[in-house]
């Protein structure tokens, strides 16, 4: 796939964004709409620039740190537990359903408890929530990736009299990488959601979640939207970071998918 074709396939999406933004901006000016709840894009951008130095820069830094620390902790634990247990059938057949079942539990509901534990100003409450949220998908996908290996490939390794360690390093781990990166994509998005939503239950005044809630509360929607736009960018940036990392570390996989 060439660079130019990649750009051209993004074109419809880009065009749509430009058209929607232009229509929105134009309609607000021409029709003189009182866009109280949904201010026009230029106003939001103006607020963003205005508020960046005083509050928003600090807010996004705080929220992003919570998400990142929780992400690293949760993904690390999930990967380690997956690596440690995948080889025991009973362990994985117990853990995988638990991991899947855990996704039906609204973990975010535990946020008030962690905030009661550590106080709203600390990062720890949200870090813990994020870590728990990303732990389960990471563990499940790590175990699946390590175990859902082509049986014939295992026989091949066995015909070489490969040691368990060699089978792990040369077959199971490479096989697990795409699974793991899928989990990472999910985890990246979950981590931002977990951090921002967790802040709703309590956090420093400048954190994005609290700021959005407070500005909505006093009907300052332009400021709220400026923070919302930032939160969106944070989510998208995390997601693309996962994709970039995947392209760098498992290039063969991206190439194979592109060839499909």
């Amino acid at each position: 796939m060439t660079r130019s074709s990649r750009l051209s396939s993004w074109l419809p999406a880009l065009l749509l964004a430009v058209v929607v933004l232009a229509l929105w901006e134009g309609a607000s000016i021409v029709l003189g709409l009182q866009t109280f709840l949904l201010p026009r894009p230029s106003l939001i951008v103006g607020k963003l620039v205005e508020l960046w130095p005083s509050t928003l820069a600090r807010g996004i830094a705080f929220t992003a740190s919570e998400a990142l620390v929780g992400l690293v902790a949760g993904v690390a634990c999930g990967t380690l537990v997956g690596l440690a247990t995948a080889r025991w059938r009973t362990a994985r057949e117990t853990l995988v359903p638990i991991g899947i079942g855990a996704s039906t539990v609204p973990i975010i509901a535990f946020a008030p408890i962690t905030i009661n534990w550590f106080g709203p100003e600390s990062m720890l409450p949200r870090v813990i929530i994020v870590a728990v949220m990303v732990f389960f998908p990471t563990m499940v996908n790590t175990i699946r990736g390590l175990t859902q290996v082509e049986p014939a490939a295992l026989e091949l390794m066995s015909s070489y009299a490969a040691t368990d360690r060699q089978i792990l390093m040369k077959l199971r781990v490479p096989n697990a990488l795409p699974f793991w990166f899928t989990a990472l994509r999910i985890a990246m998005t979950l981590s931002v959601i977990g951090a921002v939503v967790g802040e709703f239950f309590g956090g420093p005044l400048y954190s994005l979640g609290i700021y959005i809630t407070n500005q909505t509360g006093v009907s300052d929607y332009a400021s709220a939207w400026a923070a919302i736009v930032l939160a969106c960018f944070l989510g998208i940036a995390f997601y693309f970071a996962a994709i970039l990392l995947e392209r760098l570390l498992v290039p063969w996989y991206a190439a194979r998918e592109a060839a499909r």
Partner: protein
Amino acid sequence: MNAAAGSASPHVVETHGVGKVFETGDAAVTALDGIDLTIRSGEFVSLIGPSGCGKSTLLRIIGDLTDPSGGELRVNGKSARQARLDRDYGMVFQAPVLMDWRNVASNIELPLEVMGFPREDRARRSAALVKLVELEGFEGKHPWQLSGGMQQRVAIARALAFDPKLLLMDEPFGALDEMTRERMNLEVMRIWRETGTTIVFVTHSIPEAVFLSTRVVVMSARPGRISRVVDVDLPQPRTVDTREEPRYFSLVTTVREALRAHLVDTEPLDDLGDARIRAEGIS
């Protein structure tokens, strides 16, 4: 690896009364029964028979990928397990079983890495094998960028990478079209001549078995038994013209009749038993 043990016996494979019974929930299926087979060094032996005759199972027992239920088995004069641990044989499956994350060269080098060959040695061997299977220029390609025939050639090169004295091939060309298959047959013939490897070859195809082999072992199903062994006395080296010779045709007829003779006095193929064996993951 263990050259001394290997040269001790002229027989590469020796089985006495080898049998295999698969326990499936409610009933036991006898896949193999009383297999006596001796394969000498340098032979090319094909195992042929109807589905469910246990030919693949026999191959996998030789390769120690499945345990026999009974009987005696020596590979290179040792137990099958010891032969596997000594890396005495290379295996080619029906599917190429290539690792998507490795390119052609590093797929061929996989067994060498597992067996701890030094880096330069690996590179040298894989370069030579790429040439042997005529894949020059494709060393850096990944499996999904190759055609089915090319993938299977990579699998053959991989099996040959560590110079095994025995090559076990389980319907390696079953998934290929007729023309590719005939070309691959010529290539296997050439490789067999050039390397002097002993080959045990499982196939469904009578012409393929006759063309390639020095001996064709005809098997019957339920229970899997050897019903006849046909010596193929076609002259070497075998070429495209071999398939035109009258002797070739008469041997094809002999094998076909050996297969049919047994089919007549057995029940019609029982698909259920076959499915059971397949469900056990052996097929």
